[in-house]
């Protein structure tokens, strides 16, 4: 099922330690991981497993000590803050548990935010933001402020924002943590669709039933990958066309 093409995300012997009281405390211990395009992966682990640190490293928000991290074929190591910001802007889309929409900007302005850091002109930003809002079926809420949207709608706006710059990798950090279970499943469905459309999606979660909805679960325990397994495709709450499966 995995293609032989170069992985979108490739970790080799990646390690990171924090200094605690003058001594190094290893958090990530020589991780190896490949994630290919179109994969819908979840990273699970309890608190203290190194899950959050891994997420920060994958999101180019934190550095690592040794090993390598290739993102879309680019070696992301010892980046300057400026370079890291540029790579995040072009290659990564973030979805957060708390949505993190700017409260005084309306839906489409929030969606278009990554584009402002690419110096895209306002008209073009609007056009592209509207296109992704259309994709998450919120075009009719484009002019609404986040305060006027439901939790599910907010997260869909956030997903639209993650999609707008057509990133190599989408990182979702507990994307359903603030939502009720019905809405959670809709959001997972949406992320799955996004993956089915060829985007690579990594969901970090501690909720087993959310992880079960992805196709691959990487279980992190005490800084090492304890388990990495594929999950067979199963019935969905909104049945997709089998064509996506056939296309692989």
């Amino acid at each position, binding site marked *: 099922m995995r293609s032989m093409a170069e992985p979108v995300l490739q970790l080799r012997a990646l390690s990171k330690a924090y200094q605690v009281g003058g001594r190094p405390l290893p958090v990530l211990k020589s991780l190896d991981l490949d994630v290919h395009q179109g994969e819908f992966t979840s990273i699970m682990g309890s608190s203290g497993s190194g899950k959050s640190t891994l997420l920060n490293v994958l999101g180019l928000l934190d550095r690592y000590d040794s090993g390598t991290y290739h993102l879309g074929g680019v070696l992301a190591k010892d980046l300057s803050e400026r370079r890291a*910001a*540029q790579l995040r802007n072009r290659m990564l889309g973030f979805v957060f548990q708390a949505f993190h929409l700017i409260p*005084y900007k309306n839906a489409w302005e929030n969606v278009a935010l*990554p584009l402002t*850091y690419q110096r895209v002109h306002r008209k073009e930003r609007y056009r592209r933001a509207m296109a992704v809002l259309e994709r998450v079926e919120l075009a009719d809420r484009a002019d609404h402020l986040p305060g006027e949207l439901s939790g599910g709608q907010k997260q869909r706006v956030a997903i639209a924002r993650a999609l707008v*710059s057509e990133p190599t990798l989408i990182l979702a950090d507990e994307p359903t943590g603030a939502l009720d279970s019905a809405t959670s499943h809709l959001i997972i469905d949406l992320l799955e669709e996004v993956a089915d459309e060829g985007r690579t999606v990594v969901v970090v979660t501690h909720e087993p039933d959310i992880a079960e909805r992805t196709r691959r679960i990487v279980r992190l325990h005490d800084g090492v990958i304890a388990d990495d397994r594929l999950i067979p495709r199963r019935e969905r709450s909104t049945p997709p066309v089998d064509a996506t499966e056939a296309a692989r």
Partner: protein
Amino acid sequence: MDRFIEILQTLARNGTRTALTALSVAWGIFMLVVLLAAGTGLENALLYQFRDDAVNSIWIWPGQTSRPWRGYRVGRRLQLTNADHDAIAALPGVEQITSRFRVRSDSTITYKDRVGDFDIRSCHPAHQYLEKTQITSGRFLNEDDLAQRRKVVVLGAEVVRHLFRSQDPLGEWVDIGGVAYRVIGTFFDDGGLGELSKVYVPITTAQTAYGGGDRVNAILFTIGDMTVAQSQELATEVRRTLASRHNFDPADLRAVRVRNNLERVQSVTGTMKVIRAFLWLVGLGTIAAGVVGVGNIMLVSVAERTGEIGLRKALGATPARVVFEVLQEAVLLTSVSGYAGLVSGVVAVEILEWSLPANDYMQNPEVDLGVAFTAVGVLVVAGLAAGIIPAWRAAHIDAAHAIREGA
């Protein structure tokens, strides 16, 4: 334009706080402008007394001795004469020199049936330079008038208005204390009504006609482009010359009174420098308070927006971009409110100038262009200064941490 809207959005989120901060900056600039304008007004008023006299001049009046000297008693009244005039004229550095002989004050001046009581001043031709007399028609006194003791007179504008109305006075004859004088010129003087009510006649004529002998009441002379030190030296030299001629102690400051205008102007200018520096200090201090306010509000705003700034960094805002945005906000806030302060300051000064009654302490307070530009410069710098610390804070926000903590 985009960024501008964005900045306005952030500033508007804390409307009251922003408005109060803006007010404090505006107040600072307002105070600076008004203070400096008041300083200019004060300086104008102080320098006003020199307006119609040559600044580079020394004036000498005879006094009364206050120290015993070589057997002469104290309290002796001195009388200056033409010979003193000549002795001073011979001193190096003395340029234009004139004496004055005061014609009795009860001398009235008559033209036909019109009579006026004006101050008759008799002098040398050089007097024109010392009083900055501006000839409006005809000519001033000349050496020939003095040599021949001509009975000629130069009239001030006010005298002309009183005696001649709209008639041309040149060539007409007026009577001063029983002596007929021909009008050879008229003049204007910046010194106001008092100076415009003067009548100038040749000193030789006056001394002869009114029993003056060789006596003079004052000697005035210009000193070219001397420094203050040089002028003080010359004044001492004059005092010494007169001391030896009239037998008084050269250290007796009451024997002759010497007014060194250059020295006086210098002291006024010196005082003004100190006052001006003080006003700048106060004004800048007030602005500084406003700037600290701006810095403060920016710090609070950055702290409140930690989550948002973290998010922006995660989405691709480079540290430079974050710094730039915060600085822009600070500069916009200070420059807009400062500009408002500048404009209201200028308006206040205009109103002050317009409503100020004539007085000796404040004349033509004004905001000069240089000051206005300096104030604007101060603003931009202040805005940047106010933004630096908050911007630095913002740029160093740890995006991962900020996002986890929540917006």
